[in-house]
């Protein structure tokens, strides 16, 4: 029995390998290794890359911590690494990824100009998709109670109050406020919405400001409409709260939108609408920062390998792949048909949302923010203590990192 299963698996594998080779535009002869994030969109890209042959892709939740040391090795342990606004910083700082201008000129005719991530005039990465939080809401509840889709956070509070009074769900609001980078991001989003700047031009902290105070006060108010266990809520948790009809709306990750209509998991199929992330102040820009996600090519490899790796990566993220996996992400690749669920993401960017800054201080200040905001939310620190402690913690680590 076991043996039969094994041979069956083997046959399937060979079948997929043979059909696969036909799908790739060229036959890859040079062994290529890649490490990418593990969410479904990357799974689709990885499958398509592997069709070219001689490609080994590791899908890993911890690319964030692994790619920098792996690419710093000589020769690099991977030819291709997935990157986003944040993870590209250590790679740029250690100079372990190569400019792609020549390769783009040679092979990149199919690329959308929007995909080229240019830093200091050089193309350093190819973006495949964008991701951000934007409003997701239960269309049925909002229609029944006659609530307009909120465009700023005062309206969010008003809508939450109405829904709470109507008592139609356990808790009106959901938020990815798990006590790690999750809650840090949400602080950042609101902070930017209130016009805050994280650091001054000389890298000294600037979080202890009016924007910082307003952000903390707004977070306190929002928390009153959430499940009190919000500090353990990661994206999967909030996704399940939506799917199981426990919350009515949330500023939630675009990459999870497809899961709302997944018949295997969701009880809210067709009931979730998306809209731009709300502004912090009426008429302001959306209180959210968006990221791009894509790939970069290692520097410490031969030019032939780099060429093959680049071609393989492009095959992974080509129009054909997007057509097969249209709903998995908000793709930047030509051929993408924005779905109803992508409306929120596109509106958010059109309303002027800013990209996540790719800088060294970003990670340092986020670390300081995460911890102290958590202690503010658990009531251990006051608004002023929180903001002072964020600046103190940042100053300590910025000195160690040579920024101050």
């Amino acid at each position, binding site marked *: 029995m076991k043996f039969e299963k094994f041979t069956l698996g083997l046959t399937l594998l060979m079948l997929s390998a043979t059909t696969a080779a036909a799908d790739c535009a060229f036959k890859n002869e040079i062994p290529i290794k890649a490490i990418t994030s593990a969410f479904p969109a990357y799974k689709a890209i990885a499958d398509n890359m592997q069709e070219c042959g001689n490609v080994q892709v590791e899908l890993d939740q911890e690319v964030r911590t692994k790619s920098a040391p792996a690419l710093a090795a000589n020769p690099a342990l991977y030819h291709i690494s997935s990157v986003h606004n944040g993870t590209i910083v250590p790679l740029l700082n250690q100079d372990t990824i190569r400019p792609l201008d020549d390769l783009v000129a040679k092979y990149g005719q199919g690329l959308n100009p*929007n995909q080229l991530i240019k*830093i200091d005039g050089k193309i350093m990465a190819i973006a495949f998709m964008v991701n951000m939080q934007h409003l997701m809401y239960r269309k049925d509840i909002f229609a029944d109670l006659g609530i307009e889709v909120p465009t700023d956070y005062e309206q969010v509070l008003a809508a939450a109050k109405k829904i709470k009074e109507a008592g139609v769900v356990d808790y009106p609001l959901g938020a990815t406020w798990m006590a790690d980078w999750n809650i840090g991001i949400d602080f950042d989003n609101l902070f930017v919405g209130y016009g805050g700047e994280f650091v001054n031009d000389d890298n000294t902290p600037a979080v202890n400001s009016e924007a910082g105070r307003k952000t903390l006060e707004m977070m306190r108010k929002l928390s009153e409409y959430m499940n009190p266990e919000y500090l353990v809520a990661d994206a999967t948790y909030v996704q399940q709260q939506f799917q199981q009809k426990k919350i009515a709306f949330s500023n939630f990750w675009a990459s999870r939108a497809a899961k709302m209509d997944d018949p295997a998991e969701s009880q809210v199929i067709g009931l979730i609408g998306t809209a731009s992330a709300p502004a912090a102040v009426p008429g302001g820009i959306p209180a959210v920062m968006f990221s791009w996600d894509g790939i970069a090519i290692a520097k410490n490899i031969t030019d032939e390998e780099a060429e093959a790796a680049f071609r393989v990566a492009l095959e992974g993220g080509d129009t054909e792949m997007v057509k097969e996996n249209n709903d998995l992400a908000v793709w930047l690749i030509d051929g993408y048909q924005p779905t109803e669920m992508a409306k929120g993401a596109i509106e958010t960017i059109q309303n002027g949302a800013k990209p996540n800054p790719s*800088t060294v201080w970003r990670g340092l200040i986020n670390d300081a923010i995460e911890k102290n905001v*958590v202690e503010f939310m658990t009531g251990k*620190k006051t608004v002023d203590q929180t903001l002072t402690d964020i600046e103190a913690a940042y100053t300590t680590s910025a000195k*160690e990192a040579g920024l101050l």
Partner: protein
Amino acid sequence: MRRQTFWKFVGPSIFLMVLFIALPLASVFWQSFFHSVPSVESVEVETCSPGFPTQICETVLKSRAVLDENGRPVTTTHFVGLDFYRSVVEPDVVWQAFSSGNPAAILRIDFWRALRFTVTFTFITLPFVLGLGLAIALAVNNSTARMRGPIIFVSLLPYIITPVIGGISIYWLFVGDGIVTRLIEAMLDRNIAVMTHGWAVEALMMFYRVWHIAPFAFVIFYAGLQGVNRDTLESAMIDGASRFERLRYVIIPHLLPLIVFVTLIHLMDSYRVFEEIVAFNAQSQRISLQWLTYDFLQPDDSGNRAIGRASASSMLTMIGIVLIILPVLRRAWRDHRA
């Protein structure tokens, strides 16, 4: 044993201990006094990222690492003395807290918060582990031979489970709408949120540790019970000693070296409490010293790690372990010489 034979047997072990324990420790000790600062320059950089319908390009002032001709970041290393220890312990804030008559304020500092939890955790779980372990050992020892196998097997189960897995399964019983939470909610007829209470999370973590480690104490004590002198026990019975008196004056003195041994192991293990924090997602409520070191070591999104502070905090953790096991070790040493 001939001296040469002795060294042939012990040599490889000592070599490996030096290689894998002593040398890394010395290197961590060294690192806690030296600081490598990367050189950073500020430059105007134009960055283009995706937008709808076209790209967004902006020019901002950015700090970036200076690279040498081989493309490696330029760093300078210098001796910083106790600076890293100071930024972990923050003696100024401690001094201020005590002089202003509000010592609780030091719990705002991660290190002291972690130390508070670690010490409480270690010393509260200890008596429960010893007591429960001894109770199970006595129960098994007094049960009929036919029942012993199954009872031993069941009692050992918690110890066999991988710590993080065991922790997560207990966490799931209580988090959100976990089975136990639902049950309590039904009994009290109101909504409760266990994980929002720091003390509840702390109690759960201790409960989990006792449940997990008690079988280890049980196995040791059970083995010890097999060696209790039957004659002494019988003569105690003839002298009219009650069950408790026999336990107090015969069994416990016999087990004492084992109790010291289990205490020692437990103190060392639980001072390094870590898995519970991860499994119970407790970092928002409680952190431990080991977790603090781990947190310093974790690179943030821009790839920065606080190696210096991580080294300092792991040295402090080690000093802490030595301090708490010192009394137990001295006792064992005295008994050994006596």
